[in-house]
Structure formats: structure tokens, C-alpha cells
């Protein structure tokens, strides 16, 4: 449990469908070929292959922790220049609580179950642990790949540091100002939630987008939560099957049909985790992505509010005949910022729409195909089992 190496390229295609069009540009290719889990911390190996001259080497790797990813995400969000972009959502913290708790319970209940049952349960738990591990590696990888495939973000200086800097990033991370800034940003954002409903929208496109995204976000958040519940229930059933097959095995030691049944039922566990990867992850990912899109709208709304305030300030200045050039300059800047945000925002949101539809499509197809494949396997197994029983 302490150290687990993962070479996960085998299953990495699964989550790729969550976000498509990544890692096609050979000028900057990023992947996470392996990761190490030590106690609570996961250490990712971030590997970069590039033809860009801005990097010192064409091929290199660095170790990174989850907190480093968060730092990178937050610095990008705080960068004014990127206010008009959808910043890819930060990868969630690796969460091993569920399998760890189960393992703990298993250890406590070891005395009450047979050796075989215990071994099977342990195997299942290890598989679950591995699945969580793979998932977290994937979301971190996708985050980086979203950045590398973005025309503007891929050129970010901090991104380059993240990829290249071969020392510990923790010094940069612990920058108190940034941490405080992040906190402040979140505080203001919730106030802005009210703002966004209040600001008069000038552009039809953004008005529609706002309505759509607000509604869609609440719906997808709901669906994500319900999907997670469904997957959990599936997992419980899979666990029950393990107990059943173990008890059946001890009841009928010479009955090989028990073993066959066991395999059938273990399929249920795998269906659960596939469904989890496909549907739940898809929903979860796009929930976060839509939040990122909403963030863009907030920033634009703030810029609009700033612009309107600057107008008011200019009017006041003109009235008082004081500081008019400054007010004019401020107003000009606000308008410029707002226009820039609107222009880039429109582009980003349009491409986001397209990206989302493509990802859903790919995911749904793969999910349906997997369900069919597993069900067909089940059918074959069950038929064989029934044949065997009937012929005895």
C-alpha cells in the first residue's frame, strides 16, 4: 500500500475521450508516463517532448506534486491577460479515502471470513485503489495537455517553468501573496454571482451563453452527483458478489460451477468501474469545465461593470471639470479590456461548445460499446454455466 507504481498507458485512452483534440501538435507533447504513491502524496513524472526553442532541452522529465498543478492553475487564473480565456479546470485532489477506509474495514473483519474470501476482497480493493490512482493520473495529464494545446496558454511562462524547472516548486507555491490572492478571488467571485445576474447584457451571444451555462451547470452538477451514487451502489453489489462467491466456494468445494458463477459476478464489478470512468467522469469533467466557462463570463461581467463605472466616473469628472484626461484614459482602457475579453471569450465559448459535443459523442459511443461487450461476455459465461449445470 505504501508504494505503487503505475504504468497506465494501457488504459489511458479511456479518459482521453473526455477531452479531445489534445496532444496532436508535435511541437509540444506532454504526458505522465508514471507516478508514485507514497503515503498520502502522489508524485507525478511529467514528461515533455518539444521542438520549441523556448525550452532548454527537447526531451525531459520532472517530478511534480498535486499542489504544483494547483499553483499553476491559480497563477493562470490570476493572470489578467488570460481573463478572456477558459482556463482548464484544475485537477481534483487525489482521493484515496474510499479504498483506504474499505481496506481498514477489511482488516478488521479479517477474522470473520475465510482466507479465500479475504484474498478476493483484498484483490478487489487493490484494483479499486489502482483505478483511483489511474484516474487521478489521467486528470492531471489532461490538465497539462489542455494547456499545451491552447495557442495562448501554451506559451505561458509559468507553464514553462512548471514543465522545465528541475528543482522543487514548493518555494514558489508557498508565496503567501498568491495564496491570499486566491482566497480573495474566491470571495469576490461569490459576490459576482449576484453581479452577473444584475449586469445588463449588451450582446445577445453572451446573454444566451449566460442563461445556458447557468442552467446547464446546475443540471450537470445534479447529474454528476446522481451518477456517482449509482456507481457506488454498483460497487456495493460487486462487493456482495465477492462474498457470495467465496461462501459458495466453501459450501461446494468440488463444484466448479461455483467458480464459473464467481467470474460472471466479478464482471459486474468491472462494469461498474467502466461505467464510472465513462459516464461519471465525463459528467464530472464537464461540470468543472462549465464552471471554468462561467468564470470567464464573470470576468467579462466584471470588466463590463468596470467599464460602466468608468463611464460614470468620466461623466462625474466632466461635471466637475477635474481629472478629465485620467478618466478618459481609464475609460478607454476599460473599454479595450472589455472588448478584448468579449472577442476572445466568444471564440473560446464557441470552441468549447464544439469540444463538449465531440467529447460527449465519443464517450457515449465508447460507453455503449463497452456495455455491449461486457453483456455479451456475461451472456457467454452464463450460457456456459447453465449448460454445465444442466448436463451434470
Amino acid at each position, binding site marked *: 500500500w505504501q508504494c505503487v507504481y503505475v504504468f497506465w498507458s494501457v488504459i489511458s485512452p479511456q479518459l482521453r475521450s473526455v477531452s479531445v483534440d489534445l496532444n496532436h501538435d508535435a511541437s509540444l507533447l506532454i504526458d505522465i508516463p508514471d507516478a508514485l504513491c507514497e503515503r498520502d502524496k502522489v508524485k507525478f513524472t511529467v514528461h515533455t517532448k518539444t521542438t520549441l526553442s523556448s525550452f532548454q532541452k527537447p526531451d525531459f522529465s520532472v517530478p511534480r506534486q498535486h499542489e504544483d498543478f494547483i499553483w499553476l492553475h491559480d497563477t493562470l487564473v490570476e493572470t489578467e491577460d488570460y481573463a478572456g480565456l477558459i482556463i482548464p479546470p484544475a485537477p481534483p485532489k487525489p482521493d484515496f479515502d474510499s479504498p483506504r477506509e474499505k481496506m481498514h474495514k477489511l482488516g478488521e473483519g479479517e477474522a470473520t471470513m475465510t482466507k479465500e474470501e479475504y484474498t478476493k476482497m483484498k484483490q478487489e480493493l487493490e484494483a479499486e485503489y489502482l483505478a483511483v490512482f489511474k484516474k487521478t493520473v489521467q486528470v492531471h495529464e489532461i490538465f497539462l495537455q489542455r494547456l499545451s494545446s491552447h495557442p495562448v496558454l501554451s506559451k505561458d511562462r509559468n507553464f514553462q517553468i512548471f514543465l522545465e524547472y528541475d528543482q522543487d516548486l514548493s518555494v514558489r507555491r508557498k508565496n503567501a501573496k498568491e495564496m491570499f490572492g486566491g482566497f480573495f478571488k474566491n470571495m469576490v467571485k461569490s459576490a459576482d454571482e449576484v453581479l452577473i445576474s444584475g449586469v445588463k447584457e449588451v450582446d445577445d451571444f453572451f446573454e444566451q451563453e449566460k442563461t445556458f451555462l447557468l*442552467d446547464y451547470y446546475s*443540471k*450537470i452538477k445534479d447529474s454528476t452527483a446522481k451518477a456517482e451514487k449509482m456507481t457506488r*451502489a454498483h460497487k456495493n453489489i460487486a462487493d*456482495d458478489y465477492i462474498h457470495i462467491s467465496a461462501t459458495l466456494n466453501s459450501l461446494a468445494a468440488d463444484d466448479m460451477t461455483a467458480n464459473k458463477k464467481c467470474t460472471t459476478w466479478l464482471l459486474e464489478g468491472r462494469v461498474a468501474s467502466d461505467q464510472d470512468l465513462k459516464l461519471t467522469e465525463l459528467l464530472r469533467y464537464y461540470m468543472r469545465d462549465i464552471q471554468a466557462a462561467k468564470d470567464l463570463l464573470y470576468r467579462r461581467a466584471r470588466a463590463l461593470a468596470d467599464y460602466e463605472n468608468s463611464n460614470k466616473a468620466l461623466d462625474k469628472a466632466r461635471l466637475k471639470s477635474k481629472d478629465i484626461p485620467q478618466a478618459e484614459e481609464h475609460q478607454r482602457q476599460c473599454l479595450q479590456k472589455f472588448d478584448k475579453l468579449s472577442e476572445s471569450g466568444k471564440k473560446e465559448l464557441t470552441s468549447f461548445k464544439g469540444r463538449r*459535443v465531440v467529447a460527449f*459523442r465519443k464517450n*457515449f459511443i465508447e460507453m455503449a460499446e463497452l456495455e455491449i461487450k461486457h453483456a455479451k461476455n*456475461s451472456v457467454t459465461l*452464463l450460457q456456459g454455466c447453465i449448460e454445465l449445470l444442466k448436463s451434470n
Partner: protein
Amino acid sequence: MLLVTKKFHNKSEFEFMKLFAARNDSFLSADANVELSTDKSGSSARKEPSGPRHASSFTPSPAAMQPTSLEQVQATAEPNPLKTCENLSTNCVMFLSSLGDGMNAYVAYKVSTRTSLPMFRSKVFSVRRRFSDFLGLYEKLSVKQSLHGCIIPPPPEKSVVGMTKVKVGMDDPSSVEFVERRRAALERYLQRVVSHPSLLQDPDVREFLEREDLPRAVNTQALSGAGFLKMINKASDAVNKMTIKMNESDTWFEDKFQEVENEEQQLRKLHVVVDSLVNHRKELCGNTAVFAKSLAMLGNSEDNTALSRALSQLAEVEDKMEQLHQEQAASDFFIFAELLGDYIRLLGAVRGCFDQRMRAWQRWQEAQSTLQKKREAEAKLLWANKPDKLQQAKEEITEWEARVTQYERDFDRIGMTVRKEVLRFEKEKAKDFKSQIIKYLEAMLQSQQRLIKFWEAFLPEAKAIA
């Protein structure tokens, strides 16, 4: 185990009674039997959904069930294909009688028998019985037959809570499920009784099946469920407290008893897990239904038309999955869990007959020691020279010698019966488990095949997203 199909009518009780009476007349052959029960849906085997509800669900799902009034429940059963007994098949049909009201109301079960045995008055007949009648039958049988070392199948559990709800007239799905569960359990109980060659010959059994009006059984509180098990365990304790320990010339009995105990333990464990499985699956049902709705809402919000359509379709697929899960839960319960419950009780009954044998041995031993005492008393009297008392003593000795012989013979006979019974039981058990597990797997198989169809129908929708 008999396959069950269910149908619900939307008729008033009176009309239902009329309908029932009409059907009663036409209750002539097995074919007619099956026809009546399955109405539109044809055979009682599982089929694709026709109309709003899948015809052969074991339990109705709350959503699609039309009238859920218990008065309108009718169930019939197919003859048991695994019956080896001489052409006797017993079917158990249930309906709610209007007899009594409120807390005095009770459910009457229609027991229909089809037979070719000459000892019965007719070939096809049915009677009405209530739950306490079944318990009464068990009591009569166990008093008589267990002395011979027979394994008497135990009846299903009494349940005050379940029956109260039913009596109060609650029409909710759990009450319906409860009544159906009981009906199926009673049916299995009867099937086991009539497939036992010795029990079938018992006049009480015949009376139970044939007689129009059965006198009310009393003292049934002690029986069924916890009461039954307590009885068995008390007997076991009595045996264990025996001061004279049996010296087995043949280890078969000891070994077998140990086997039975182990098996019972394992089945209990399994039952607990299967119960958990049933609950989790019901939970999954709920979660899936909720998720399907949420997904449908999401589909409505989606502005891309093709994706919106696909989301709605996916929501429908999930809805269908929920139905599959529900049927699977019913299958888990009615096929698997109930099977385990039955055999836990049956193994208790097996233990019971081992105890009977022990008690027979004990009786024999006690008689022997009494005989010994009598002989010693005779010797004393001889020495004391009391001729009249001596005569009495000699008579007593003769009496007790006869008893000892009798009890020894009884003990041997019981031993043989127990052996035979256990072997028969094991064969029946293996058959029963096998057929039930096949049924369970077949249900699962059908479920998976339907699942494939659902997803295959969805796939083009997903591909159509643009």
C-alpha cells in the same frame, strides 16, 4: 419450485369473486390452468415487455402497477417439472377473502391439487386454507412422523408486522410483495410435503388437501419462524445434557450431523450476504431512476439538438436499466434468498430428526436401566422371601424386558429411517439448488440479453451526434 406469474385486475371485489367462481369451474386441466393465469402474455416464461409492464415480473414495480389492491391478486402456478412423485402436483392459488374485517380479516389461499393417485376422491380439486391451517398441518405431522425419524418440512415464518399491514388493507407494494412471498413459501412447503412418500400417505395430509372445511388449528403460536427454531434448539439442548453419552458403532451419524451443522452455518452466512445484495440492488434501482430523470433534465437544457436527443435517449436507457435491476432484485430475492431461507429451516428439521434418534436411544437406555433395577429388586425380594410381591416383580420384569426389546427395535428403525431420510433429503436438496440456480442464472441471462438490446438501440443515437 414453481414458476409464478402475476396479473392484476381492476375489478371490484364482488366482480372478482364472480370471475374467480367462473374460473374455478374451468379449472380442469393443467393447460387451462396455465392459460388462465397468463392471459395476454402467453406462457409463463419470461418474455419481452408487452404493454406497460413485463408480464412475468415477480414483484410489481410501484410505478407501473395499475390497481394494487390485494383483493385483485391472482396467481397460479405451473406443475413442478421436477416432481418425481407419482403424478401428484399441487398448485397453490391465493386470493383475499372478505371474511372477517379489520384485524380479524385473513387471507385465504386456494390450494389446487391435480393427481392421479387413487386414494384421493377426485383427480382435480381445490380447497381454501388459511395460514394457521398450514401451521396446524405441520404440528400434526411433527407429532406423529418425527417419532419415526422423518424430516418434516417446516412451514414459512409467521410475521405479525407483515400480516397486520395486509389486514389493515394497505395496498402498497411491500404488502403485495409480502403476501406473494408467503404464498410462494406455502406452495413450496406443500410441494415438499407431498413429494415425501411417507408423508403423502398420512391421512392428515390427505385431509388438508381434500376436506372442504378444516377445523381451526389451535396452538399455532409456538410454531413457525422463531418458535420453530426455538423448539428444535430446545430439543438439541436436551440431547446435549444427556448424562449417558452414546457410543456410536457407526460414525456415519456423528459425521453427518456435523456436516449438517456446518452447512447450516454457511447457509446462514450466505443468506445474510444475499439479503445485503437484495438491498443494494434495490438501492441501485432507486439511484438509477433518479439519475435517469436528472439526465433527462440535462438533455432538455442541452442546446445542441443531436446531443440533446442523445441525452434523452440515454435517460430512457437508464430507465430501462432500472427496470432490469428491479427484476433482478426480485429474482435475487424470490429465487435465491428464499431458497436459502427454506434450507436453513430444513436443515434445522434435519437436526431435529437426529435428535429424535438420540432420544430413542435414550429411552432404550433408560428402559434398560429400569429393567436392571427391577431385576435387582426381584433379587432382593427373592432373598427377603415375599412370594406375592415376587410375582408382581416378575411381571414387571417381563413387561420391561418387552419394552427394552421394543425400544431397541425402535431405535434401530429410527436409525434406518434417519439414514434413508437424510440421503433422500440430500438428493432433493441438490436437485432443488440446481434447479433454482439454473433459474436464477437464466433470469440473469435474459436480463443481460435485454441489456444488450437496449444499448445496441442507443448506439446509433450516440453516433448521430454532430
